[in-house]
């Protein structure tokens, strides 16, 4: 840097020059720091904001009275609440309007699924003239949750799609109109909805979100490799033991260098799938029946049964039967491994990726692999037969809006969950229709009949017993808790000790839960 020798203030400024050189060095460091932050996406803010906003911003939002309740008397949201205490849903208000109302709708659907949701929005807007829906893709589920929690009342949308792991935090914001209020005020018939889908977003008599898109993880298999290994591609492994036997044969026969591609993403192999396996083993993810009979205080990841099932997966990697593909930030890594130079024969992915997989293979982008070479099987687990904890997302009307806007949002929710919309949606995306009568309507009815791959996720969910632990865990800081488990799974898949790593992660998760409870008056 330049010394200010000729300046009249030279003598006096010298100490500052020193400071400024130091500052410039700091700047360079700061620059590289901020650069990598920008590149890294919005992760750094995620945890900070999500854990702090529900108490900070909740009061500024929606019905103030109900928010106050949520931090005092309504903290145990798992106990019964009178619907009259909650934000009302004036569904009749739409009949009184003179001008169309605009409903802003935030969702987290990408790729083929975004195209499909846009098509439904267009169809709805074209089919009536009272409500105009404007859909905004926020880039993914976590982005939707983050932005919703970060936003002040005025910046929030009128309708939002929130995944099942955001249910508790949505309840705790007090900023939503429970679907229950709308169902009751409009007399909406939910009898043909899948019971397990409804229960996923309900606590003790209150339906909070209206299930819209329903999915569960399934096994994606390269049938060519199975055939090359002398296996029947129509009979896929139904549990861990069969999975291991199948994989041993594939690797031993040399049909593929490795069998199962595993990731440790929060929304996939490190979080969501583990929740599936825990439930499949008949175990609980957290105490108080996964937080559904009372607010959860502890996760139960260090229980012997969980350690055992995670050890099985780690053993698959140790024995060269499975390959670990990282934290799957793109959500596609585990699939891409199936088409790499060292292809894996199978992987686990959400059924909601089926539309995308078929689209990619149908486009001929992957040489040597066609749509017909992909087989879909249920998710093998530690239990004897496959089961599923419903994933996906529900719709929430936002409180504190004009009556007509809330009514408009509800009208659109009814459209999105109508049998025809659900059938079309399921056929393009691979999601499971939330209601059984949709499954009997075309186009999904013929897809189920002609292409059994579409049906696997549906059958798996319907076959799941009506057990309290068969629905998603209900934890306030579920986004962060999931991330804690995903970090642990990454360590374990990388060779870490199963028992110790899970115990550490469980302690971290318990701290998150306690912190959340303290902030939200629990």
């Amino acid at each position, binding site marked *: 840097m330049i010394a200010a020798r000729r300046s009249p203030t030279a003598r*006096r*400024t010298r100490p500052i020059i020193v400071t400024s050189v130091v500052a*410039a060095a700091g700047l360079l460091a*700061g620059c590289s720091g901020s650069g990598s932050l920008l590149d890294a996406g919005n992760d750094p803010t995620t945890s900070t*904001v999500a854990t702090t906003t529900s108490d900070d911003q909740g009061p500024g939002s929606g019905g103030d009275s109900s928010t106050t309740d949520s931090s005092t008397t309504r903290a145990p949201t798992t106990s019964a609440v009178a619907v009259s205490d909650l934000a009302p849903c004036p569904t009749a208000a739409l009949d009184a309007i003179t001008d169309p109302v605009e409903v802003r709708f935030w969702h987290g659907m990408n790729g083929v699924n975004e195209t499909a949701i846009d098509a439904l929005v267009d169809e709805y807007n074209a089919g009536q003239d009272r409500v105009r829906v404007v859909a905004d893709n926020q880039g993914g589920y976590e982005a939707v949750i983050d932005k919703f929690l970060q936003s002040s009342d005025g910046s929030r949308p009128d309708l939002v799609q929130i995944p099942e792991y955001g249910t508790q935090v949505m309840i705790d914001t007090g900023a939503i109109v429970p679907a229950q209020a709308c169902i009751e005020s409009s007399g909406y018939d939910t009898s043909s909805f899948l019971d397990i889908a409804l229960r996923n977003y309900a606590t003790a008599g209150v339906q909070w979100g209206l299930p819209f898109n329903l999915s569960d993880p399934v096994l994606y298999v390269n049938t060519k490799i199975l055939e090359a290994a002398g296996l029947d591609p129509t009979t896929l492994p139904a549990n861990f033991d069969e999975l291991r036997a199948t994989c041993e044969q594939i690797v031993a026969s040399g049909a593929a260098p490795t069998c199962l591609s595993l990731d440790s993403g929060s929304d996939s192999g490190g979080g969501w799938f583990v929740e599936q396996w825990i439930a499949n083993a008949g175990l609980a993810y957290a105490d108080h029946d996964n937080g559904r009979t009372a607010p959860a205080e502890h996760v139960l990841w260090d229980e012997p049964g969980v350690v055992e099932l995670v050890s099985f997966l780690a053993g698959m990697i140790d024995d060269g039967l499975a390959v670990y593909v990282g934290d799957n930030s793109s959500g596609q890594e585990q699939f891409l491994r199936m088409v790499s130079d060292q292809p894996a024969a199978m992987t686990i992915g959400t059924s909601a990726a089926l539309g995308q997989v078929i689209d990619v293979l149908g486009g001929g982008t*992957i040489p040597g692999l066609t749509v017909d070479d992909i087989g879909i099987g249920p998710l093998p687990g530690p239990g004897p037969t496959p089961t599923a904890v419903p994933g996906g997302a529900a719709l929430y009307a936002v409180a504190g809006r004009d009556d007509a806007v809330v009514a408009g949002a509800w009208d659109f929710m009814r459209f999105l969950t109508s049998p025809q919309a659900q059938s079309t949606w399921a056929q393009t995306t691979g999601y499971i229709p939330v209601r059984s009568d949709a499954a009997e309507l075309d186009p999904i009815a013929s897809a189920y009949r002609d292409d059994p791959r579409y049906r696997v996720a549906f059958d798996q969910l319907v076959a799941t017993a009506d057990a309290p632990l068969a629905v998603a865990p209900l934890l306030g800081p579920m986004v962060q808790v999931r991330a804690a488990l995903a970090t642990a799974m990454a360590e374990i898949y990388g060779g870490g000790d199963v028992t110790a790593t899970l115990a550490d992660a469980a302690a971290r998760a318990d701290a998150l839960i306690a912190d959340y409870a303290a902030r939200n008056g629990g």
Partner: protein
Amino acid sequence: MASERVEATGIDRPPRGFRLVARYALLGAVTFVVLFPIYTMVIASLKPGNRVLVRPLVPDSFTLDAFRAAWTDGHLGRFLLNSAIVAVAVTLFQLVTSLLSAYAFAFLRFRGKRLVFAVFLATLLVPVEVTLVVNRRTVDQLGWINTYQGLAAPFLATAFGTFLLRQVFLQLPKDLRDAARMDGLGHLGFLREVAVPLARPTMAALVLFSFLSSWNQYLWPNLVTTETDMNTVQSGLRMLRVAAINRPNLVWAGTIIAALPIFVVLLVFQKHLIRGLTAGAVKG
């Protein structure tokens, strides 16, 4: 440059021709490392969709389909416009605020100048992450979510620019200032007629720096936009990536489109930069 002097020490060196070859070989290797990824990106963006994952480095057929699709399906036009508006505004404001504050710190005498300047510089030590959440809330409370002012506001002034230009101003001879005053130039007149022309190379550097960092922003625009129409080009690229999983050539084409303005700005201002630097060198 240094090698000439080393030669004079008499230590045995390889012959000149060999060193020239070695030097160019090294330069060539480095150039290859830098340019190869860009080459593959350009090539991949020009391949037809179903040939993208096919190996050959020299494609057998070319098409501009990917560019067309990235532009229309990816709404890149709108996103580029947003980015341009924000980047130009940020750059202009940073230039003006930096010039004025640097002038004050360099030429004016006022109580507490050292302290104020120190505080100014101290802001450089505060990482972006620290102010992110607070800024997000402020912008939200102002009702500036999904607006250009919301995208640009936190970056309209920078202590870095102030510091940079102040250093240049401090270098200007006191006589210049006195002569200008004799000629009847006030503060703004001196700034406009004398200080700014002499600080031009540094200003060019600042413009480049401001424009680049604003153009390449990802996190902040993501935090303050919820409507697709207000996205900047970097988040647009991300959307393109998730939307076009089966069309990677689209993403590459989009990346090239997004990088073009940066190339242009770099080319334009590099000339200024070099011209300014040489002008300064003979100033004496």
